[in-house]
């Protein structure tokens, strides 16, 4: 679990977007498991995002027309996983994030904390190798922020998933093993 900290405009989110393959770096090279991501076809990068890399955002970004259950199930649907398997996985992850009783709710019916728990479940459902989290507690009060960090620590660590956490918060970076700093687009390790 690695945290990246730095002032606003230092390039943390841009780095995360490049790592997630949703943006292209102007220069340099980017490798995922020894494969150059800059040389990959869009469909190959999409494949990586489907199975290897997941994201968690500050503003949750749940799909507003899908219920909690459907939002979590959605990445599995993209992977064309059979429906019965999807249901089992969703039921299990809902239980883990404590959202079983809210599974039929739509995002606008949820609190910020509930939305972020749903987003974490959505990220975990595909069992990715890496989770990229961009200020996951930035839009939550301190109590909910603490809960979310605990949840991330427990679930992500337990599954052996690598976490790259971009944050301003010392409290958030404290859950990580390593903390790097960014300044003016440069990573200070």
């Amino acid at each position: 679990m690695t945290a990246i900290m730095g002032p606003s405009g230092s390039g943390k989110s841009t780095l995360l977007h490049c790592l997630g393959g949703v943006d292209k770096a102007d220069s340099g090279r980017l490798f995922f498991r020894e494969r150059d991501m800059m040389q990959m076809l869009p469909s190959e990068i999409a494949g990586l995002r489907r199975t290897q890399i997941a994201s968690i955002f500050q503003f949750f970004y749940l799909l507003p027309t899908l219920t909690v259950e459907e939002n979590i199930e959605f990445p599995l649907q993209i992977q064309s996983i059979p429906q019965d398997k999807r249901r089992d996985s969703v039921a299990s992850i809902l239980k883990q994030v404590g959202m079983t009783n809210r599974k039929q709710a739509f995002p606008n019916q949820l609190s910020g904390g509930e939305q972020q728990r749903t987003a974490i479940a959505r990220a975990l459902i595909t069992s990715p190798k890496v989770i990229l989290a961009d200020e996951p507690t930035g839009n939550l009060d301190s109590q909910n922020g603490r809960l979310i960090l605990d949840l991330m620590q427990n679930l992500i660590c337990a599954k052996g998933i690598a976490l790259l956490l971009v944050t301003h918060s010392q409290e958030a970076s404290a859950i990580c093993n390593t903390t790097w700093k960014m300044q003016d687009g440069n990573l200070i390790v």
Partner: protein
Amino acid sequence: MRHWTRHPLSTLAFCSIIAVGVAAFFSIRLANRAAISGFTYFDRTLGLRPDLVLTCPSGQFSEEDLYSIQNQLDSIPCVMAPVLETTATDAAQKGDSLNLHQFLVVGLDTFAMSNLIYYDPDSSNESAYHAWKESSHHSQGETGEASYGVVVSQALANKRNLKTGDQMEVIIDDRNTILSILHVSRDEVFKVSHPSTILFMNIVDLQRAMQQTGLSHRVELYFPPGRDKSILMDKAQGNLENNQRWTVDTPQTSLNSNASVTRAFRLNLTILSMLALVVGMYLIMQGMDAAIVRGRMEIATLRSLGITPGAVKTAWLLESLWYGLLGSGGGLILGWAGAQGAVRLVASTVNALYLQSASESADWNHSEAVLALSLGCMASLAAGWFPARESAETQPAEIFKQGRQGGFMTALNKPLLGAGIAIMGWVAAYMPPYPDEHGWIPLGGYTAAFLWVLAATLIAPAGLRWMAPLLQPLTGYHAVFMYAFSQLRRPTGRHLLSVAALTVAVGMAGGMTFMIHSFETTMIHWISQSLNADLYVASQGFGSASSQNRMSKATWQSISNHTDIKRADVGQIFPIDYQGRKTFLTSMPVSNPLDWEYALWIQKPSSSPSASSNTNMPVAVVNESFQSRFDVKIDDLIKIPTPKGYKTVRIAGVFAEYGNEQGTVAVDRNLVSDWFQDERAVNIAVYLNPGADPEEVRNEILSRQTGISIRTNRVLREEVLEIFHQTFSVTHVLQWIAIAVAIAGLTMAMITSLVERQLEFQVMKNLGMTRFGMAMATGMEGLACAWTGFIFGTILSACLGWLLVVVINKQAFGWTLQSAIPWKDHVSLLVILSLFVLASTIPVGWWVSTKRMHKEE
């Protein structure tokens, strides 16, 4: 102003929508106007406009009538000028089409022709006038045809490169006739532009050419100019009125009477032409709503800075008005250009079904332009009203809270209110028609149509939510379906409005198709029942209600005597005025209607006359249009105007006929010939002896008879259906314009909606969805909206189709049509709609999916 410059594409889209709507309306209005004013009284005279026009209910004045008129006028100083009109076919035209272009030949007397010398700087008119007056006019052509002097219009002379002394060959009735050009009328002399389809002859020559000595169709009265003119006119009117043999009108009322003949046709076309504007209104409303939702934060900021709700509303309404003005301006230009094409379609329908029209182009008309411009601006203002009101009335805090969600159009979802309005429409549909001096106006039917369209607008958007559970099983199959169909559960205002617009477009277009298909099915049934002769013979060029070409008795007798012909039914038709309205008297090939084997009866004549009926009285059968227009029933006695006075006949039956909406009364041909002293036939239906080959007989008759055309049964059926399809060509164009506007609206809605949902696409991209998947999801979403609109549009089209066939058509035209659902057309519409929606929404989805995430944050 900032919105217009910052969003030039959406401004262009709104203006284009209004422009298309206004253009459709304006072009049809101009075309209608041109088609019915094809021949005005200015066109039909050389110079002076008559002060009064006398017409005869039987359609024909005899010489005896002229003496009576002269006596009644007593010593009132005025000039009485009888006029005779007929049609002539251009002999140069090849082909046997039923819709050959015709000349209107006007026979004028010497007084009317004297106007030739009214303005004559180079004395050329005077020479022509003297040539006209003094020459014997009538001579034999080189090949034996009759030859007469004629004055042609400048338009015709230019078109055919004709000059004085040239000759042209036409067919008058069934005779080839040579016309020698005495003079080319110059537009600047009479301050009127005579169309290229009018010819002026001496009335005596025309009577000779038609072999109808002493015949005239109307009498024009000219009073000397001066202060006493109106007194003289009043006196003449007083003397001439109260005589059943003729009616006295001003030229304007005569023209209005022509216009009234085509009123139902024009009214229906005008209503249809507003279809694109109505659909466009939904789209403007949708666009305004989108703009307001987009600018909500700005509105809230302005409100919190102290701008009044009224000022906010005024700003949005001004924006709507601006779109209306810009769009309508463009629409007027487009419409004027479109009218040049539409006028030919409308004029050919008017020619085929109603009266001779000379229209070749539609002139700009200021009042129509102002009407179209006002309508466009009003539509735009009405469309902007609700969004503007919503923007002004919502409190700033609430606006900040709502952000980009909602929009007033989410309030469109009112199925219960819609159901209530639909029931009101049902009640309106059963209201009796409104009677006016020219016939019936199906006001209840039009009201019902309006209420049902409104009801569909309120019910159809709810259909999106009803569709969601139906499509739910599909969502489990793929993420594309999951995302696409989830949009139906919580549709935005734009989704709702585009569904409403599609419902209205599909409903109205489908309703018209329902009516046309029912009409076609009925026509085919009618044709198969009525057109059973082996050959149909008519003078060349005859084939429409406006044609006046007839076959002489010698011609049809000669044909009837052919050895291979078993029977020949002679058809005659005379336009008459019954109870002050134009209708037709036709001949029945038999004296007893029960023997008329090919009539399609709505009410069959009884084999045993009722006790109340006078068995010695001549019997007549009437068509449905006559029955409904004049409110008559079996056993009623009606008085038919003829040159021999009014003849009373008893109505014995009602038959189906779809050739005209003015009504037809049919009487035994021998009686009709005797009453009108006219043996000329409009056509003859020829039944051959068994074994005779129709083609051989046809060719054999044509080899010895000129000036006629002969069609076999198959060809005639094909041509009748061709004219039928041509009649509805304008309707088809208008339908497709409305559908295109609705598809454009759906695409616009999708673009707006997707641009607002860009972030969702970035999330899906993050979750690993491919661009193709996202584009397909967009396509599916568009398809779901289109199909919802289509389903509700189909229900609306069935209701409107029923209304058109059973209520409006019956009340306006008096025709009973057999309802037939156009399944094939409807499936084609669904396929075309689906393909267009996919073709327009998938690229939008692809485009949005290519947007980079950081730009949106």
